[in-house]
């Protein structure tokens, strides 16, 4: 007879090995000093954190990371939630096709996807050529290497995740609920807003957290579409690790990002998630 707790053993061990161990090592590393000629110093110090918290560049990158992530999350919510509902109401044959289209971006490599946006958004790119041809004043616009480009690239890949999260909740929706609302005199928009959306909240809230976290920790898309000067926290950490070779500082940047994201998620759970789920019957 195996104790149930033991059955979790392999999973716990795997997590300890691939998550807790590297994270622990990273935290320890961030508590060391650094000298360009000698590398990481043996003594313990919180100097890295003190430097970062007073460094205007880091503050700027952190603010940009949150601005971009919040923007991406907001757009994914506004577009993805109604999109899932619309696809859900399609005939089964169309539903499969549309779902595949929505998932499309996930099937393309991040590099290909992002370089595609570079081609489109560049000064001589397709979009600007079209705007020029239309004779818009001020064209060509600077679109590449802006925060807008980063948001656009991230929305492209995050949207499927939001749709999928909401899709799971739609599967549990009693199909007679929207009909009941309709029969009581509600128009399509009211049915969605007053009856369907509240039932989708578990999926919406879960998708929000997922999209926000993945956006805040995204690396390739902001690195390519943001260029060298528009740094977010992940590209900053990358820079410290691989260009400046200041590993302890890079580790401290990564640790601060982790804390900031976890703090945001915890706050979100307290302020938005719990009240919404309690209304749906969660303890």
């Amino acid at each position, binding site marked *: 007879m195996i104790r149930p707790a033991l059955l979790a053993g392999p999973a716990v061990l795997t997590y300890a090995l691939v998550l807790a161990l590297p994270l622990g090592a990273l935290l320890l590393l961030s508590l060391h000093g650094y000298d360009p000629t000698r590398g990481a110093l043996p003594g313990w110090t919180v100097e890295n954190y003190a430097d970062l918290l007073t460094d205007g560049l880091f503050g700027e990158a952190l603010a940009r990371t949150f601005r971009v992530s919040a923007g991406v999350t907001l757009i994914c919510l506004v577009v993805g939630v109604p999109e899932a509902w619309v696809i859900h109401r399609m005939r089964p044959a169309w539903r499969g096709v549309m779902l595949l289209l929505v998932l499309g971006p996930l099937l393309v490599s991040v590099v290909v996807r992002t370089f595609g946006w570079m081609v489109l958004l560049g000064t001589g790119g397709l979009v600007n050529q079209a705007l020029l041809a239309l004779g818009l004043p001020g064209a060509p616009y600077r679109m590449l290497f802006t925060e807008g480009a980063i948001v656009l690239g991230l929305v492209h890949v995050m949207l499927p995740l939001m749709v999928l999260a909401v899709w799971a909740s739609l599967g549990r929706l009693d199909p007679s609920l929207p*009909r009941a609302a309709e029969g009581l005199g509600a128009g399509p928009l009211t049915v969605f807003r007053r009856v369907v959306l509240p039932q989708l909240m578990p999926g919406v809230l879960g998708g929000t957290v997922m999209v926000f976290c993945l956006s805040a920790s995204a690396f390739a898309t902001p690195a390519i579409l943001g260029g060298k000067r528009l740094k977010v926290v992940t590209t900053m950490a990358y820079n410290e690790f691989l260009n400046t070779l200041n590993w302890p500082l890079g580790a401290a940047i990564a640790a601060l990002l982790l804390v900031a994201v976890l703090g945001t998620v915890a706050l979100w759970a307290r302020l938005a998630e719990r009240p919404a789920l309690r209304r749906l019957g969660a303890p």
Partner: protein
Amino acid sequence: MGFLRLDGVSKSYGAVQAVQDLCLEVAQGEFLGVLGPSGCGKTTTLQMIAGFEAPSRGGIWLDGAELTRVPAARRNIGMVFQSYALFPHMTAGENVAFGLEMRRVPRDERGRRVAAALDQARLSGLADRFPRALSGGQQQRVALARALVIEPRLLLLDEPLSNLDAKLRESMQAELRALQRRLGITTVLVTHDQAEAMALCDRIAVMQAGRVVQVAPPWEAYEAPSGAFVADFLGRSNRLAVRVEGGRGWVDGYGFDLPWALPPGEALLAIRPERVRVLPDAADGLRGRVGSRAFLGHSWLYEVETAAGPMGAVVQNTGAPPVAEGAAVALAWDADSLRRLGP
């Protein structure tokens, strides 16, 4: 001219014909039951009246106006769903208020009407409860109050009692019937439960494979079913393949009178179990042996093996000792208990 009229309504999903050329008239204030086994198209019919499905062909008329193309939201029809479909994130009061809110009824009048509706449904004091905190019967009454508070022209009930336990179902049946009488609201009930339809409805429409096979008051459909399907679906029928000779019917040496003059030859008759008399072995009748018996409280149900096949017989419980299992008996009946199946 009926208050609600379905005129040649058909509905097909691809190659599947869910409803075929359905014609039905419901008078104002009438309680009509649409009855049939699952998959017979009765729920699709209700969805089309409510406006959730559009007919492929035919038209639906309510109070002299065509309804076929009117969206569900503007039909002013109250509906109670099988799952009740109460909005889980709204309290009982908010659920009932929803339809009034959609009609832009002012707040204080809305409050008054919701309170009155909850009161009538014996739910006063439960207005602030969420549906998950209500019992099945209470949820059912909230659903009914929500459908009625908008003062609908028509009330549709989709298997409204099927999720309740037997005892509660019986009391809800009486309540529903009394409410419908009091309000005088035209009502269409869809159910697969023949006992429920017979207990509640003024008339029943029996459906089979997308078609209506009989529309009649329940007792008429029960006593004079239009065919074998209705005879079997409403209650239970024993089949008797008999030989007609000299104006009498013969089964395994038992000769009995017939209510009609039949030509000599074979005939297929039916008889309800409660019309079959169970007599001692020595009496004149169809010989048989009691295979099993079931005590139903008010009566005994005997399954009797005979040369003409198994026969069910229901005998009223008078307190006398029942016939033992395995005992030899004779079955007899009166001429006016017999029904002919088919032509």
